[in-house]
């Protein structure tokens, strides 16, 4: 009996989660689309922020709403944010496990972040206009040269960039090959790399599954890494390898902690 009960509760929670979560996200998205224009005007009048900065803050608020909606079924944990200051601007790099990794960036204590992503998210008509207003970078369309120029503009205005250096979601949960782009940009600009590690979203919604499972999601901030410690022609490659090693070690530790 004692072993059946948790399984039944888990199954019931999964069913309720899938019945409730998707409609809730849709309602929250529609509400956001309706409210945003008014919020934008108010924000512009009272903060004096530029349009892209305001949009990024609204995306962050939208993400906070998503965290609230998922909270009955998902346990969210943050690690490393008390003793490690996320100084901006920086270039954030994070492992990629799920479509909802981007939503979990609302766990970050900062909102002025431009996401660098592939083309397909820009094809979602309900998100695309907002992503363009926030000056998100469509890497596949603009290429690395364009990304470096656009990235420099974001960084020069005090914004941070967020990259998924693996390029796409991991199918087996393991960290994949890292591309060099964000590290090359860090070396060229002197802006520090902020490594982030996420676990649990591969349980919530991995690639090739459309229904949710209850999960514990943990986002950990590592110490920032200065690119100035890496010199020479292979600086960005060395920086990439160093950051990947740090992230691999931390992800392993996070997964072991979860098993305890």
């Amino acid at each position: 009996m004692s072993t059946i009960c948790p399984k039944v509760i888990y199954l019931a929670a999964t069913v309720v989660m899938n019945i409730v979560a998707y409609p809730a996200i849709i309602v929250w998205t529609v509400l956001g689309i309706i409210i945003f224009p008014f919020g934008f005007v108010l924000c512009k009048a009272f903060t004096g922020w530029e349009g892209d900065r305001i949009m990024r803050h609204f995306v962050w608020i939208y993400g906070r709403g998503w965290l609230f909606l998922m909270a009955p079924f998902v346990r969210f944990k943050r690690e490393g944010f008390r003793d490690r200051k996320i100084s901006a601007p920086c270039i954030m790099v994070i492992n990629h496990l799920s479509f909802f990794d981007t939503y979990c960036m609302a766990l970050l204590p900062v909102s002025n972040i431009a996401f660098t992503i592939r083309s397909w998210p820009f094809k979602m008509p309900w998100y695309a206009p907002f992503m363009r207003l926030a000056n998100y970078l469509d890497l596949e369309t603009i290429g690395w040269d364009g990304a470096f120029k656009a990235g420099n503009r974001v960084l020069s205005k005090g914004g941070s960039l967020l990259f998924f250096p693996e390029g796409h979601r991991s199918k087996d949960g393991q960290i994949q090959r890292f591309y060099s782009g964000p590290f090359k940009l860090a070396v060229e600009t002197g802006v520090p790399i902020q490594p982030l590690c996420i676990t649990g979203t591969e349980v919530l919604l991995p690639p090739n599954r459309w229904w949710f499972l209850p999960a514990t999601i943990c986002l950990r901030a590592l110490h920032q890494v200065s690119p100035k410690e890496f010199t020479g022609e292979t600086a960005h490659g060395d920086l990439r390898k160093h950051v990947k090693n740090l992230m691999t070690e931390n992800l392993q530790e996070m997964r072991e902690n979860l098993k305890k």
Partner: protein
Amino acid sequence: MNDQEIIDLINTTLANEFELNIDDMVPGAVLKDDLGLDSLDRVDMVIVLEKAFSFKIREEEAIREIHTLGDIHNFVIHKKQEME
């Protein structure tokens, strides 16, 4: 260094640098589609090959015509023969 040793050195050098599976390093592998090497990786590829073989190739026009791993093998073998 014979041709097979050159091929082996190219394969291990690129596999180490770009975290590729050595089993995928076949001559017909297309750099972009099969090995996932993007435009930045191609620049890095030239740098690591220059280091591995102690030559300078970054200014060579033929580099732009490389599409497969086999093209790299042939290019480097030809370059080494030129140097001898």
